[in-house]
């Protein structure tokens, strides 16, 4: 089966964004990073652990009524580096994008060092420099190499 057939398992969207080729099991973390929790009222479709030629298993997320910017999708590179982004208008794909690894991610991850100033009630967002094999807190220097999804900030 082709990827196109798989996408049909959840309904097509008219306007919005399709995030495809998310590593299997990471769709809910993708939504968490993007701050999409369903409260806006727009339709959100999630398909998890679909067979994929490229990834073995993949997740797909479709967000109706919202076009994600490149900056928004780039943070997804931390947990879904193979993700592809399709911007949809009137049922047509008008733009395809790939996630690019950003130099810095801000307000996305929580520093695991409980003695880091960003974990306090201060007017500052967490900020991590993104390296080849991990991310590093720009305030306390703590390095996170493994299991980044566990450090996604709860809204």
């Amino acid at each position: 089966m082709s990827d196109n057939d798989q996408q049909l398992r959840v309904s097509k969207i008219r306007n919005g964004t399709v995030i495809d080729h998310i590593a299997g099991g990471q769709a809910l973390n993708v939504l968490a990073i993007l701050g999409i929790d369903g409260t806006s009222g727009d339709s959100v479709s999630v398909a998890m652990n679909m067979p994929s030629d490229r990834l073995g298993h993949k997740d797909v997320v479709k967000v109706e009524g919202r076009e994600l910017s490149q900056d928004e999708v780039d943070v997804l590179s931390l947990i879904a580096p193979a993700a592809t982004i399709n911007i949809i208008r009137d049922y047509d794909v008008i733009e395809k994008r790939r996630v690019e690894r950003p130099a810095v991610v801000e307000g996305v991850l929580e520093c695991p060092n409980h003695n880091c100033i960003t974990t306090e009630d201060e007017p500052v967002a967490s900020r991590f420099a993104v390296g080849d094999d991990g991310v590093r807190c720009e305030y306390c220097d703590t390095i996170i190499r493994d299991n980044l999804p566990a450090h996604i900030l709860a809204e």
Partner: protein
Amino acid sequence: MRHDHIISAKQLSRGDIETVLDHAADIAADPGAFADRHSDTLLGMLFFEPSTRTKMSFTTAMKRLGGDIVDMGSVESSSVKKGESLADTVRVVEGYTDALVLRHPMEGSAKMASEFVDVPLVNAGDGAGQHPTQTLLDLYTIRENAGFDDLTIGIMGDLKYGRTVHSLAHALTTVDARQHFISPESLQLPRSVRYDLHEAGAGIREHTELDEVLPELDVLYVTRIQAERFPDESEYREVAGQYQIDAETLEAAKDDLTVMHPLPRVDEIAHDVDETTHAKYFQQAHNGVPVRMALLDLMLGGDQ
């Protein structure tokens, strides 16, 4: 210097370090010549943790340059007790003073605070993070006694939480020192510091016993192992006891070994070491004044 804020030793190049140390040497040679240098300057002192040496030497340094200090006092007597954020505190105090000195128990506090102020801010210790002015006075003491050429240094004690160690180790990469780290396994260098040293191309070796490397060392930098890092008192005593030195220990060292300690010491350096020619830790503490005078003078525009 090109830095408005002094947050981490990592921002200091070899050139920056030499500039501060040369200026400190000029000041130490003729302190009177700098007495009126900053007569209209007020330095804001924000110490959220106890400090004796750092706070007193910054105070002395500012006064010896002709200026004065404004001290927040203890946390218990300040608005912090009412729940004021650090960001608010520094924004208020910058309006009273020309520069700020901050000590705070949390890592990253100085960097965050510096993002909220326009006056120069100096990190005087942020949790287990960095303590760059201690590093400058350590380097001054090392240069005076052992020099930077072909330097072999041993750094011993609590390498995990010791902020003076984290700052010093990074700065020593700028002079290409050979660094030996001696500690119990549970208190070895944190991953981030190790990563930075590796990136800087530093030659580092790690040991659990001082005996292995003592005869090679030009400088032995001893730090305190704190009881609160261990689950119980008996384990602390057993571990800490292995990292104490006395005059007898140093018989295996080079005659011109320099022994340093950021102080306060508890019992990691026995008092009989004080009487040997190796002991430089009081000289090191005294160097805090000319080095901090130099840094303040340069930050406040003394090089123009």
